[in-house]
């Protein structure tokens, strides 16, 4: 289960991650040994802050694609916590498919309340279709575990989330530093008897949902007079002898063979890399072999676009990439720009600048095969490139 942790920079993300790892015994002993020995030698108490420091350093060292991924296990299942330094990095990774969150953990400092960054992050989760959300009201120790203060911030959070159309699954008072409410209920918060953070995580729904068979063709190999169409199954399963449709043309064909590294198979399912031979030929890289519901095949889209570099401008040409599909495209129109702080929809704009979000009408030079992001993220997200650089990412809504 992949959880993205978001919230204002000082509201305690690292401390909460540290606490989750520490209290679920997910930190290998030797990682903290040197710190423990130093504390002992200098007659200092082993403070939780040192644990957080050590983990943070470890995470920074292991940071890849601008994002850190931390792993831990509850009694129920395994989790990956995705943490990006800012929303821009997170967005980039989400829309490019470098990481995929199934739920969000929004952290809010009880003393500071809802900040601009809190709003922005919550809204981005909404835009990305992350519908499961745990709100953690942190630093309860600083307000003497006051129910009144918690209720006040809870009200603020709920008010904003309602405006953006999100309903959180849980709102939990915690002190990540001291561990209250993270993996066990605290006597210091006697007025809160509901789920702890770990209970809430375990209560989230499994992300896995079945979707019809989709296999974008990545490569085509020649085998005597046959063609092997190779790619990764994005969803569903396929059997030898089944009829499939290949889009964008929609032509029908029959699966003759399924070939994998392990040899020939009778059937295969997500996420296997396979090669198939068909009773027809002439399909190209970027075509999508499908079963079941017809995918969206179009050369006009109006997705939500996140500008990641420079700007996305009307009438400009870009390269559109979605899995193995690639085509030139033109921004017909910037329909609206969304101010993620005020939620104001700004019309009459011709470009999205770096970090801005908006709805954009795009004309593609040739039809592409896509899906709604919420149905199948891999075919629901794309990137726009200019001069070899990714300037924007988008999702089909």
């Amino acid at each position, binding site marked *: 289960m992949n959880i993205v942790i978001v919230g204002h920079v000082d509201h305690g993300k690292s401390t909460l991650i540290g606490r989750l790892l520490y209290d679920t015994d997910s930190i290998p002993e030797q990682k903290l040994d040197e710190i423990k020995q130093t504390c002992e030698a200098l007659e200092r108490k082993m403070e939780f802050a040192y644990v957080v420091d050590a983990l943070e*350093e470890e995470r920074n060292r292991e940071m890849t694609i601008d994002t850190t991924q931390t792993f831990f296990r509850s009694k129920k299942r395994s989790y990956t916590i995705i943490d990006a330094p800012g929303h821009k990095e997170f967005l980039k990774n989400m829309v490019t498919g470098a990481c995929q969150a199934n739920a969000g953990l929004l952290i809010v400092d009880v003393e500071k309340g809802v900040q601009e960054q809190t709003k922005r992050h919550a809204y981005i989760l909404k835009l990305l279709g992350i519908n499961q959300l745990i709100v953690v009201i942190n630093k309860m120790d600083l307000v003497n575990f006051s129910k009144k203060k918690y209720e006040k911030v809870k009200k603020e959070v709920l008010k904003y989330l309602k405006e953006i159309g999100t309903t959180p699954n849980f709102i939990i008072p915690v002190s990540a530093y001291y561990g209250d409410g993270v993996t066990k209920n605290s006597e210091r918060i006697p007025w809160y008897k509901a789920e702890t953070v770990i209970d809430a995580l375990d209560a989230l729904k499994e992300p896995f949902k079945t979707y019809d068979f989709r296999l974008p063709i990545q490569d085509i190999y020649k085998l005597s007079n046959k063609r092997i169409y190779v790619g990764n199954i994005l969803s569903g399963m396929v059997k030898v002898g089944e009829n499939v449709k290949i889009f964008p043309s929609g032509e029908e064909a029959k699966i003759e063979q399924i070939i994998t590294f392990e040899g020939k198979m009778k059937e295969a399912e997500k996420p296997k890399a396979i090669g198939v031979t068909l009773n027809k030929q002439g399909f190209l890289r970027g075509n999508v072999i499908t079963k079941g519901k017809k995918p969206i095949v179009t050369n006009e889209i109006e997705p939500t676009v996140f500008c990641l570099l420079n700007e996305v401008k009307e009438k400009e040409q870009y390269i559109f990439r979605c899995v193995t599909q690639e085509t030139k495209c033109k921004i017909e129109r910037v329909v609206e720009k969304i101010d993620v702080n005020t939620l104001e929809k700004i019309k009459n704009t011709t470009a999205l600048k770096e970090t801005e979000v908006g709805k954009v009408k795009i004309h593609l030079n040739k039809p592409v095969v896509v899906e709604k992001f919420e149905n199948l993220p891999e075919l629901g997200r794309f990137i726009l490139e200019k001069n070899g650089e990714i300037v924007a990412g988008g999702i089909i809504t």
Partner: protein
Amino acid sequence: MIILALDGLEYKYVKEFKCKNLMQKYCGKTDISEFSEPRTVVIWSSFLAGKNLEKEILKTKNFWEFKLNPKETFFSKFKKWKAMDVPGLTYKSEKHKKERELLKKFFNGEITIGEYDKAAFKHHKENKAEFFNAIKENYQVTMGYFALADTIGHLSFGVKPKMKIVYKELDKIAEKIGENNKLLIISDHGMKAVGRYGDHSNYGFWSTNFFADLDRPKITQFRKIIELCKG
């Protein structure tokens, strides 16, 4: 007056770890660019003498053994003074030699970092006890030297959480000295990370709890300031 001589104390870590007792009221970097290399004995001796002794010290057979006559240092201006483990003056050569040997042993794969650290912590503990006993006495100037940041830093400067604990320990020492004394905190050089290890950087650290009109002073400038503190 108290002089806290902290070998290898790095300005950037003092700031980053928010060691407010080490920063005191005024703090900054020292200029040691006049030295060809940031060598411990050379810089501390030059600090004591108020002049660059690099050439003279490097001519000696074993510069770790180099010892100044107190008459050549700012201590000559004081009647009652104490200098503990100060390189170039009262340096406990044998103990430091052992530490250097342990460092070699580590790189030869003979001992672990834990074993190397252990000796450094032990030495630090002894110096700390001696130092706090000394400041109870009525010395006009007490100079305590602590090599902890440098010794631990050589094998762990890149391990920030560990160095933070070390710096917090030194910060605690500065705090414990109290505000009743004029306090100069000084390092010979700072450090820079080389992977998890540490190498000497080309500037040092200074801080005072009194105004001394310093910006980026040379290490040799402090002699005058210390002598002026005699009042």
